[in-house]
């Protein structure tokens, strides 16, 4: 394992401190908790929080700031944060109007956030949440927990943050989230695995010429190994999965995100989105806005994910494009 770190067990602490130092104009660490909160208070507004394991940077703390998240929780690397830490974030985010939690659909995340909600409610803080499940790589889900929450969650952060800033209530936000959720579809693939520092070795193995289709964001293997193929063929495989779920219509408008998994050069991400545009043009779908870059990573995994976000509601584009004051949006 070759990493610029000091000791594996100190990575999350030191990363948080580095981030707090580097962006002290925007965010601060709450005491020595695992919570990064925005400096801007947003008095009287609903706080939005999100979190999960560390290793997905810039998710989640990169999206903390005015117009987006109020606070983010850092679990250990690829490990859901504990309820007490989520509860710290709830307290930091609460400005009297309650707190809305964005949870990615992983058993650990759901369980820990739910326990935190119970703790906060015992203290009289109102808490609502949504569970994102945008990973459609598995096709029709055969497992009872449903699809994973992956990069599409970033759009959820942005849209909820926009509405919270405008004064939306907890139940407004819950409504919006439930409308956004079914319009998000993502699928990813990996060319090389990631190594959790405390583990010291990669989460899976891939041959010289192998790729892993349908990976999540935790170094877990995907649904299938395949041979390396040209970008345009990868684009087609993913496009078909997203389309099977969204059933895109001619002339409709979507937002596209190509998300690097951590060590994928922008060069490859742009070559890839070029192929995606070719496919979308082929079926007459319009791209209202696109995002390219590392938004939700899996440490240094090589690969990318593609998210299509159907603009079923007119305000969503505006919500995405509105300016924010964050590290990474």
């Amino acid at each position, binding site marked *: 394992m070759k990493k610029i770190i000091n000791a594996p067990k100190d990575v999350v602490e030191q990363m948080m401190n580095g981030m707090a130092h580097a962006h002290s104009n925007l965010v601060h660490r709450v005491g020595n908790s695992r919570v990064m909160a925005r400096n801007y208070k947003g008095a009287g507004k609903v706080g939005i929080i999100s979190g999960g*394991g560390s290793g997905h940077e810039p998710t989640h703390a990169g999206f903390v700031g005015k117009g987006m998240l109020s606070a983010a929780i850092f*679990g*250990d*690397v*690829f*490990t*859901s*944060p*504990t*309820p*007490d*830490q989520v509860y710290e974030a709830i307290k930091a985010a609460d400005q009297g109007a309650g707190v809305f939690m964005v949870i990615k659909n*992983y*058993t*650990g995340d759901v*369980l*820990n956030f*739910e*326990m935190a909600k119970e703790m906060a409610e015992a203290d009289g803080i109102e808490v609502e949440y949504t569970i994102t499940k945008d*990973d459609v790589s*598995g096709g029709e889900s*055969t*497992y*009872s*927990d449903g699809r*994973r929450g992956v990069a599409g969650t970033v759009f959820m952060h942005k849209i909820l943050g926009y509405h919270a800033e405008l004064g939306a209530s907890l139940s407004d936000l819950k409504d919006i989230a439930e409308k956004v959720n079914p319009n998000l579809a993502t699928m990813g693939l990996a060319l090389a695995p990631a190594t*959790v520092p*405390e*583990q010291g070795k990669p*989460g*899976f193995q891939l041959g010289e010429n192998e790729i892993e289709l349908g990976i*999540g964001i*935790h*170094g*877990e*293997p995907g*649904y299938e190994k395949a041979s390396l193929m040209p970008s345009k063929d990868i684009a087609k495989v993913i496009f078909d999965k997203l389309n099977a779920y969204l059933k895109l219509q001619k002339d409709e408008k979507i937002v596209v995100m190509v998300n690097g998994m951590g060590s994928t050069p922008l060069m490859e991400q742009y070559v890839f989105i070029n192929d995606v545009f070719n496919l979308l043009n082929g079926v007459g779908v319009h791209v209202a806005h696109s995002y390219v870059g590392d938004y939700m990573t899996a440490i240094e995994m090589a690969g990318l994910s593609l998210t299509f976000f159907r603009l079923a509601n007119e305000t969503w584009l505006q919500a995405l494009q509105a300016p924010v004051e964050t590290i990474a949006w």
Partner: protein
Amino acid sequence: MLNLTSTQRWMEHFFEEILTHKEHLSDLDNPIGDGDHGINMARGVEATKEALATKDITSINELFKTIAMTLLSKVGGAAGPLYGSVFLAFAKASLDLESLSKEQVITLFEEGQTALMSRGKAGVGEKTMVDVWVPFTAQFKKGAVRLEDVDGFVEATKPLKATKGRAAYLGERSIGHVDPGSYSSGLLFKTFLTLELF
């Protein structure tokens, strides 16, 4: 009869077994999860040992509660709230008791199992630790359980296709691997059995 001393011995032994098998637990989590189950559990166990060392534990209830709270705040992942809920249920089941009879230990395990299942919402056959809890508790209620039986319950998760937890995302590819949480629960039961109390 399970009293404070033997419960402490049980827990200490369980902790040692987790630390000994730390790497193995993560290795089991690698092919069908995210390879951190050993790390998560070890982190919780280290913190719990520390918490217990600085505290004068005077009851079984207090012991289980301390374990529960520490695991909850240290383990994270799926295992944290699940084991946290189990030990909270153990604490509840041993409230005001100085020692537990076999009947009471059966209740203890049943309450743990109920907490586990209502927190995680998994049933039997979904390739989670539930698949060790349910047969263990049932057989313990019926009579004796041998160490090899527990190994058998753990091994029996191998052919299952996961439909809960992280392994579920692998679908068919989850088949053929032992479930890591089942292995760690197996350690809990095996260290209990080595007390040879009942």
